Each structure stands twice: as C-alpha cells, then as structure tokens.
C-alpha cells in the first residue's frame, strides 16, 4: 500500500475556527494508508510548502493529501511543490475543507465530522492514483479573430506583428466596427476616423493577416491548439478579385435605401460600400433591394463595371480554417429605443440614440457634420441628452451600468455646442461617472466652458407638441419639476452584446452572463480568457468598455495568444480514459458517447482504440462501458466506489 501523508491547513482561522484540527488528525492518523499527518497554519505559504517537501523526503511518502481550500485555488501550488522533490504531480490531491466545509457550516462538531469524511474520501482516491505524464499536443500556430472593430483590429495586428498568421473575420462588408461610426472621441476630441483608418489600412497591408469580411463563423470544432472553424463567406455578387474599387457601380446604381452605417438617417445605394474609407474598399450588392433581383431588369452595375466584376450568379461560399487560438471581439449593439415606451418607443423622429447622433456629428455623415434634426433638417436650438436609458434600471431593463454613456453624453453636448454655438444642451443624469484618465477634467470642461446644463434626475416622459419635444422630469437637486421644450432628444441607450453573439458563444462552448455578455475565466485575475482554453475575449463582447480599455484588453488577448504559440506543442491533461484490451469486448458503446471522436472501434481486433490527443477526459465512456475496460485515469470505478464507501462508513 502507498504511504500517504495528510497535511491539514488552518488557513489562519478560516478552517480552524469551525474545524477541530486535532480531532481531524486523531481520526485520520490510523486510517489505512495514512502514514503521516500534520497541520500547519498556512500550507500555501513558503514555509508550508517547504514543510510539505521536507516531509515527502523525510517520511518517504508516495502521495499527499492537502486538506485546505478549493483545488481551484492552490492545487497547482501544491502540485508544483511536490514536483520539486520528485513526486509525480498526480500523487498530490486536495481535500476541499474550506469552501465546501468550514465556510458553509457554523457548528464546529458538524464541520469537523464532515471534514474527516472529505479527507478520508480523498485519501482513498490518492491511494489508487497513477503517476501520469502530460500528453503532448501539437499547436497550430495560427489564430482567428472574430469581429473586426477596434478590439479585433488591435488583437489581429498584435498577433500578426508577433509573427503569427491571423484570420480576421467580420460579418460586415468593411472592418472598423462601431468605432468607424463615431465622430470624435473623448476625452481628447480627436476624430475617430483619423485614428482608426490608419489601423484599418495597416490590417489590409499586413501580410500575416488574412481578411475575411462579409463572412460569418458557422461551426467550430476541436480544442485549444487545434480548432477547425467553418466560415460562410456571404454572397457579394461582386468578384472582389476582379473589382478594382473604382466605385462606378455605386455612382450609377439608381436605387437608394436607408444606410445601416448611418443608423438609418442617411441613404446608401443597393450596391455599396458602407462608408468611403471602407477596408476592403470593394462593394457588395444587397440583393433584397436590387431591381435586377426583384424584377429581372436593370443590370446597370454589371453593364458599367469596367473589369466586369459584377456576377449575379454568385452563391454563399463555405471555407474551413485551422487555427490554434480564437479571439472573440464581436462588439456591441445599442439597446433599441423601441423598447423605451416613456421616450416615444422610437416613433418620434427627433428622439434618437447616441450612435445616430454620432452620425449627425460626423463630417462624413449624412449631414456632413452639421447637427440637423431628422424630421425637418432644422438646426436644433435646445437639445436634451438623457443618460442611463435602459441601463441601471433593473425593474424594467438592465441592472448594469453601460460605463461609456456619461462620457459620451458629455462629449455629445460639447460637440453640439461647438457646432451650434447659440444652442443649449441639457443632460439629465442619475450620477456622473468619470473614472478614467482625463475624464473628470473633460466633464468639468463641458460644464464650465461649454455651459452644458446638468440636471440630476430621471425623465418621466416626453411627447411631441407643436414641432417640439416636451421633456418632463425632476431636478432632484432643486427638488423642482422641470419641463423643457426641446428640438431634439438624444438617448444614451444601454450597451448590449451584439445580436447573435450568444448563439456564437454556444458554438464555441464559452459562457455568457445573465445580460448576454461573454464570461471571462476570472473576473479579476483572468479577464481576457474565456473558460475554454485557447479562446480569448476582447472589447464590448465581454462587458461595456471605452476605447482605451478595449485596446488594452485586445492587446492582452493577443499576448495570451502569442504566449500559447510560444511553444510548438501544448501539454494536455492526461486524465484520459484508456482501454483495457483484455476486458474490452468491442461493443463500441464508448465510441458513441465520446464527443471528441477520440475512440475508434478496430473491427479486426474487436477492440476500441483511443487517440489520447483528442480525449479531453470527461469520463463519459467510462460510465458507459459495461465491462469496465474504459477506465478514466485517476477516476477509476474502484477509486470512486472507495470514495463513496469512505464517506458512508462512519
């Protein structure tokens, strides 16, 4: 029998205040297999780890059980320590007597009894643990970035500049994302296009970046280091290899429809690029609105195209890419104002959302940067900005703070004042949150230099009257009811994860929270990783954030990818399920339950064979095997049954 050492941690008083350490030691000291038992105040500390290492050598231990906090916290710490004295890491097990015992029970007697059972069961496991070596898995040193807004662009550039190939996928015809729609950016008021477009061009010129716009990921299989991604290249009806981007088709197309890029305020042609600086600067044809596709006539674009690139017979194309890591940078949408009954539910043309106002402010926008209201094109003289529309409203909409609205509302009010010096901006707010470098100063400037009037309170309703919008609310600082006759109202609507991202998350097997934002592996310590190895997060897909934070996270994600690619192979956890050839009857049940195709039936031999690289170690096959031939390593039937018995014995 193996010689097992048990080390009980006090965790200061976190464990010892509810678990009687001496009683635990007394109960375990004669337990079969336990040849040494000891306690220490902080096992995870340096002296604690040294104690562990010394006792392994001194007492000739074959395995150790550290009874402490959750293995999520310090399994790695203790395993690293035992390896330093030559013990195989799989001979070190953790008994969780803190999170699942001392912290959840108040009665010392009860918690002590339970701690004993937990430790005994883990000793049973440790007794039969095998020494294992990690499985080596080759890494495809090539990454995919999904979403080519500023987050995706930054991540792709960083990965590409580290020397690795990147496939950059975006569903829109051009890269640039939301940032391309913005006018100027806080707190410096530099033009968004001016700082973004050079990066867009850099993407198009970087030899390591394979750009796939107007494309969507439709399937993902595989695992870290070895993903296979199926991508749908949506039909463009323009052969981009032939197209030289001259723009004649766009100019001559006779049909105009509302422009998504301009948030429906401006128009675009049916054959179009979303905006003049688009990358790639090549058009797509929107068949739904095209006269040729509807009536079978027109073909002006085709007839006039100098290189004959328009091709009405094109269909969707599917391609497969092999990558080792994926960065998800799918960005955000804004909460639709049709959800806001009290603000006219989107039926009042001059009540718009922040993104639409960005387009009105933008010099490349539908009004060439002049602030003109959508209903009649007049320059508004009084504009009311309302913050927290849908955000911080758990009863009706969302409980979270959208983070960027305080700042962009201040910016909107400021820019409006710059465009319309005799106009008056008002901002209704709940709180003003200006956490960020230079943000508080920016907010002060809006009030002092640009005379933005801040009203602390919520707007109860608004309605149209004589070409004006009557905004009713309370200024809670003066305690007075306020009624403003505005020419235009701008709503800072909540930031939402972009449409379809949750379906996409399911494809990737990564999690999302109750609001639909993608979940990071740890809220503080692992903010750019998802819980699935090899999949990283960047930008607003994870949570609302501003441009500098997005860039920082995207660069972080890229660094994680480069870190992963630093070695040409990965070490794969060896807790896999093998085959005992003597017991295997070749029934193939295990083959059908394996989600990874790691098991194959060798019909000639009448046994199942395992691809250790593909096995992820769920153990589902072990549970399905009628003969006990498929045993998951270190989670064998005998181990689990012994654990059960140890718990039930007393």
């Amino acid at each position, binding site marked *: 029998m193996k010689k097992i050492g048990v080390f009980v941690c006090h965790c200061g008083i976190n464990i010892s205040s509810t678990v009687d350490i001496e009683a635990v030691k007394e109960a375990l000291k004669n337990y079969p297999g336990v040849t040494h038992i000891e306690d220490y105040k902080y096992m995870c500390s340096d002296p604690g780890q040294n104690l562990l290492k010394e006792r392994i050598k001194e007492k000739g231990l074959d395995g150790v059980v550290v009874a402490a906090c959750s293995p999520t916290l310090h399994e790695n710490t203790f395993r690293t320590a035992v390896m330093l004295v030559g013990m195989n890491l799989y001979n070190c097990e953790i008994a*969780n007597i*803190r*999170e699942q015992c001392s912290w*959840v029970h108040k009665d010392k007697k009860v918690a002590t009894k*339970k701690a004993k059972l937990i430790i005994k069961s883990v000793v049973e496991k440790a007794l039969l643990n095998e020494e294992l070596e990690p499985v080596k898995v080759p890494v495809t040193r090539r990454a995919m970035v999904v979403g080519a807004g500023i987050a995706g662009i930054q991540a792709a550039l960083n990965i590409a500049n580290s020397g690795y190939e990147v496939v950059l996928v975006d569903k829109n015809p051009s890269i640039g994302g939301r940032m391309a729609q913005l006018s100027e950016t806080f707190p410096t008021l530099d033009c968004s296009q001016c700082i973004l477009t050079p990066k867009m061009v850099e993407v198009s010129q970087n030899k390591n970046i394979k750009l796939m716009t107007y494309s969507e990921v439709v399937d993902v299989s595989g695992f870290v280091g070895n993903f296979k991604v199926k991508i749908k290249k949506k039909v463009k009806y323009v052969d981009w290899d032939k197209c030289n981007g001259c723009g004649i088709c766009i100019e001559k197309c006779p049909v105009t429809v509302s422009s998504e890029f301009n948030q429906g305020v401006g128009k675009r042609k049916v054959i179009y690029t979303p905006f003049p600086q688009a990358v790639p600067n090549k058009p797509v044809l929107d068949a739904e609105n095209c006269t040729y596709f509807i009536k079978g006539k027109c073909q002006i674009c085709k007839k006039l195209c100098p290189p004959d690139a328009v091709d009405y017979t094109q269909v969707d194309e599917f391609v497969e890419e092999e990558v080792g890591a994926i960065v998800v940078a799918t960005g955000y949408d804004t909460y639709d104002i049709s959800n806001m009954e009290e603000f006219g539910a989107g039926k009042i043309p001059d009540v718009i959302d922040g993104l639409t106002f960005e387009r009105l402010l933008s010099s490349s926008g539908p009004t060439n940067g002049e602030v003109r209201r959508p209903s009649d094109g007049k320059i508004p003289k009084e504009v009311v900005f309302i913050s927290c529309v849908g955000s911080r409203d758990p009863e009706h909409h969302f409980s979270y703070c959208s983070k960027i609205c305080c700042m962009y509302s201040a910016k909107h009010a400021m820019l409006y004042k710059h465009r319309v010096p005799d106009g008056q901006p008002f901002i209704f707010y709940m709180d003003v949150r200006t956490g960020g470098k230079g943000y508080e100063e920016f907010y002060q400037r809006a009030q002092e230099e640009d005379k933005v009037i801040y009203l602390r309170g919520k707007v109860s309703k608004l309605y149209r009257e004589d070409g004006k919008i009557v905004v009713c609310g309370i200024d809670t600082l003066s305690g007075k009811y306020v009624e403003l006759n505005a020419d235009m109202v701008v709503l800072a609507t909540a930031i939402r994860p972009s449409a379809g991202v949750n379906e996409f998350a399911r494809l990737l097997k990564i999690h999302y929270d109750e609001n639909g934002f993608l979940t990071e592996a740890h809220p503080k310590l692992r903010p750019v990783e998802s819980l699935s190895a090899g999949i990283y997060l960047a930008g607003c897909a994870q949570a609302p954030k501003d441009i500098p934070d997005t860039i920082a996270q995207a660069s972080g994600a890229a660094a994680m990818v480069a870190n992963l690619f630093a070695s040409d192979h990965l070490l794969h956890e060896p807790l896999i399920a093998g085959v005992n050839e003597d017991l295997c009857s070749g029934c193939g049940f295990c083959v059908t339950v394996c*989600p990874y195709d790691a098991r194959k039936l060798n019909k000639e031999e009448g046994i199942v064979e395992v691809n250790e690289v593909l096995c992820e170690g*769920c*153990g589902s096959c072990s*549970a399905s095997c009628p003969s006990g031939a498929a045993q998951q390593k270190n989670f064998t039937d005998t181990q689990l049954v012994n654990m059960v018995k140890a718990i039930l014995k007393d």
Partner: protein
Amino acid sequence: MFDPKIIAFYCKWCTSAGADLAGTSRMTYKPNIVGIRVMCSSRVDPEHILDAFKNGADGVLIGGCHPGDCHYESGNYKTQKRITLLKKMINDLGIDKNRLRLEWISAAEGKRFAKVVDEFTDEVQKLGKLKI
C-alpha cells in the same frame, strides 16, 4: 431527528465551482451532504449510485452544468438520460426515486447550490432511513 447521509457527485466546471461560490459567499447549508468531484457529471456510472445506496447512502445528488453549457459538449445530456432511466429502475427496486436527484447548477449559482442541498436534505429526511 433522523440525520441522513447524502453523497453528491458533481462536475469540476459548474456545480463544484457553484459549491465553492456558496463557500466564498459564506452561505450556510445543511451538512449531511459530502461531495465527490468528478470532471463531468457524465463520469458517474449508475453503478456508482447503486453502490452508494447499497453502502448506506439515503440520498444521492448529481450536479452538472446547465443544458448547452457542458464543458464537454454533451456530457450533461448523457447524465440526464442515465439518471432518468435509473430513477425508474430504483423505484422498481423499492428505492424511492426522490432519493436520487439531478440538478444543473452553474459556477455562478452559489445560492442555488445551497438551496438545492437544503431542499434535498429535507426531502431525504422526510423519506427516512433507506432500508434495503
């Protein structure tokens, strides 16, 4: 008052992490349950559950990730099939099917973990000692 013995098998990724969260949030729940952490709920062989009943467990709880959230793609669906069938079987064998419970508890659901444990403990307590 009868003090039932309850074995829990739960997956490392969701339910065990949910149990950890209950701990870090300093929630309290009844102490009758002792957990065995496996990689996936689908590792649990119906035979392990029968073994638990045979060796004196009054109840067995299985915890896995919510449908669609399994770390191993589809392990929890297999668990669901197996447990549904096993519940019928044990009922025929004279073990009340309510002594076996399958719950989906995510890593974010510490509160739910505590609630499920309390409810299940109460239920097993009402059913009394398992006699086979």
